[in-house]
């Protein structure tokens, strides 16, 4: 996946000294993070990276903390998730993500081999998303004071002048497009939880949406009102957020929302609603009606949007409700999750 590098440490574990700011930390960084993430900005070797200022447009800045459990799951790991969590938040503004920072909080005793694997996953995810990890920080906390590893990433992107996507721009009549099936990530994580003990082939959808977004911006231009990735809280939370922010309602068609059979099955088994389950490689777009079909076609032409669908319409509603025509023919509200307790999924 990368150029030859020193053999990863095996058998060793992270100790408090690895976070103490001394030689052990420098060695940890040099042996694990530097080779996995290598780029000229990171190589400056300072406590900060100096970067060229992008020409024109606006900066976009976002952060995400990855606290997923388990750290490795079908379709990804905490490293990939940490990269894509921030990259996608940048992409949702129509931005081209450029630079990432990574802040590691590591529990004493964490296997160095796992850290190495995760660092390489971060490197691979960053390359896939076209971003460079240019600066970072490493802390170690006592055993029992964290859950193996947490990673907070922050990212900088640039959005061209004239492209203004924001959650408050949905207008009645606009179409709501979903880029693919919902619930894959959350269910893939759930499948790894011992106490739920079910098995499925399902993989997390964790992916950087950057190229899909580029195709969408190219296809829809200013007709694109906004995008958002339905992560924690799932599609339900995201649509309610957008409805609240734009002061509108939404009318969804349940039959149009793609849900994989395994996701449906798990939801039936556990009494969950696929619309409230986290995704890490999906987006919701709101687009002016006249551009909806063009945008949909562009999305479907891209592997990350192959199952894209128009799932609803923005409607006027002072109560800002998200309503849904059920596949069965009735109508219901799609509300925020009131309080179901799911394992930590992102």
């Amino acid at each position: 996946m990368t150029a030859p590098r020193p053999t990863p440490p095996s058998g060793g574990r992270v100790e408090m000294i690895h976070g103490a700011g001394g030689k052990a930390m420098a060695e940890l960084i040099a042996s694990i993070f530097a080779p996995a993430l290598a780029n000229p900005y990171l190589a400056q070797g300072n406590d900060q990276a100096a970067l060229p200022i992008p020409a024109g447009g606006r900066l976009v800045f976002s952060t995400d903390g990855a606290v997923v459990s388990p750290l490795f799951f079908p379709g990804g790991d905490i490293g990939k998730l940490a990269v894509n969590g921030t990259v996608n938040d940048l992409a949702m503004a129509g931005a081209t993500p450029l630079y990432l920072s990574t802040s590691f909080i590591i529990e004493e005793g964490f296997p160095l081999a796992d850290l190495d694997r995760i660092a390489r996953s971060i490197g691979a995810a960053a390359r896939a998303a076209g971003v460079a990890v240019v600066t970072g920080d490493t802390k170690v906390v006592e055993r029992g004071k964290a859950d193996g590893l947490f990673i907070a990433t922050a990212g900088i992107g640039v959005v061209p002048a004239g492209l203004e996507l924001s959650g408050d721009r949905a207008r009645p009549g606009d179409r709501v497009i979903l880029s693919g099936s919902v619930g894959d990530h959350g269910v893939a994580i759930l499948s790894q939880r011992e106490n739920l003990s079910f098995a499925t082939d399902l993989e997390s959808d964790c992916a950087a949406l950057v190229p899909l977004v580029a195709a969408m911006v190219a296809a829809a231009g200013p007709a694109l009102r906004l995008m958002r990735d339905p992560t924690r809280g799932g599609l339900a939370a995201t649509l309610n957020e957008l409805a609240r922010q734009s002061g509108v309602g939404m009318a969804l068609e349940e039959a149009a929302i793609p849900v994989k059979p395994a996701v449906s099955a798990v939801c039936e088994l556990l009494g969950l609603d696929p619309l409230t389950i986290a995704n890490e490689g999906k987006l919701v777009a709101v687009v002016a009606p006249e551009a909806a079909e063009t945008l949909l076609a562009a999305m479907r032409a891209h592997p990350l949007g192959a199952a894209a669908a128009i799932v609803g319409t923005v409607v006027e509603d002072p109560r800002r409700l998200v309503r849904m025509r059920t596949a069965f023919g009735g109508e219901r509200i799609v509300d925020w999750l009131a309080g179901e307790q799911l394992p930590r999924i992102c």
Partner: protein
Amino acid sequence: MCLAIPAEIVALHPGERALVSLDGVTKEISVALLDGVAVGDYVVVHVGHALARIDPEEARRTLDLLAEAAALTAEGAA
């Protein structure tokens, strides 16, 4: 609370346990509440226990009745 779902028995495990499958999702459950469960049976699964066996014949009959009732009016037949 009474959430339960029919799933197919795909393997019998020791200790009155069985593996069920629901559209390819598999899960181990207890079959302590049902005697004589066999692979291929569909059972109603509730909080990890098989509560009842699904009777395929009765299911077919119910669906027949449903279809019949749904076809009684013009709209249903449309």
